């Protein structure tokens, strides 16, 4: 019996491709966002609200879903370039899927790239896509203790969007408790409170996205 030393990262291949995606984004002056949330928190609806307001900036979207291209159709209806990745059961996007999706976008015409991950707060945490910023979205119909349950995502996120604030009178979700819980995990997290339904808070969020583009 002998030992063979390995000392290799299991996701090294993903990390290498993510690094090359990141290099490409920097070279082409693209700011990429990785949007993470549980299913049904309103990722696509938020994009539908924001994208028409920043159509003077060249935006593109990569949609990740387990099945169907329904989300991509919604973005396509806005006239925004979009590529759908169907993972066929896969619970997260990886850097290689994003790299392949980029083949179907005109990357010389992108300033802001929104990558909507598969709705899941666990698995996507381990997979760097090459994004500049991770944005986690939670909605008021979920528990305000969500950050304590899905720590890795909240620990690595840069921004947290709380959606569906129009429902606050009807649900037990307390935004202050949610923020307090999230800040316990990640004291540097910044927050936006929006309702993609009524449009409340959307202007502030849109302005923030606008400022993230390369100068």
């Amino acid at each position, binding site marked *: 019996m*002998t030992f063979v030393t390995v000392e290799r990262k299991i996701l090294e291949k993903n990390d290498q491709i993510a690094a090359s995606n990141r290099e490409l984004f920097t070279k082409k002056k693209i700011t990429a966002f990785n949007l993470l949330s549980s299913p049904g928190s309103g990722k696509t609806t938020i994009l539908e609200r924001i994208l028409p307001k920043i159509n003077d900036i060249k935006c593109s979207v990569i949609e990740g879903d387990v099945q169907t291209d329904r989300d991509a159709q919604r973005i396509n209806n806005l006239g925004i370039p979009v590529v759908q990745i169907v993972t066929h059961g896969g619970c997260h996007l990886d850097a290689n899927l994003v790299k392949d999706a980029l083949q179907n976008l005109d990357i010389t015409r992108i300033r802001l790239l929104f990558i909507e991950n598969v709705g899941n707060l666990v698995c996507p*945490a381990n997979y760097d896509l090459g994004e500049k910023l991770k944005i986690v979205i939670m909605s008021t119909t979920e528990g305000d203790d969500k950050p304590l349950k899905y720590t*890795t995502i909240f620990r690595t996120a840069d921004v947290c969007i709380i959606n569906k604030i129009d429902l606050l009178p009807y649900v037990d979700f307390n935004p202050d408790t949610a923020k307090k819980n999230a800040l316990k995990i990640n004291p540097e997290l910044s927050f936006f409170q929006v309702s993609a339904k009524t449009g409340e808070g959307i202007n502030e969020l849109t302005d923030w996205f606008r400022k993230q583009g390369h100068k």
Partner: protein
Amino acid sequence: MHEVGIAHEIINIINEIMQEHPGQKVSKVKVIIGEMTAVVPESLDFAYQALTENTFLHQSKLDIEIIPVSAQCHHCLKNFTISAFEFTCPFCHSQDITVNNGNELYIKELEVD
């Protein structure tokens, strides 16, 4: 369920390494997993066994070591283990900390015969 994808990557790396050790058999694969990665050891083990069935790795076993999340406080400079994912120094309650361990996800070594 990302454990299946992780098991796949483990097998790819072993295949690559064993090309340099022809004729030898892998009996144990030492894997290091940090608690922050949210990889469930039982699921990973199950996926690995399922994926290696009827391959040259079918007799190999995963030996998984879990690394707790630990950090150092910038304020009082003490080291501590983070329990219940409270990212606060238990000594001085500062949140200005650096997480040093808990994000590991790598193959340490193979035991071969």
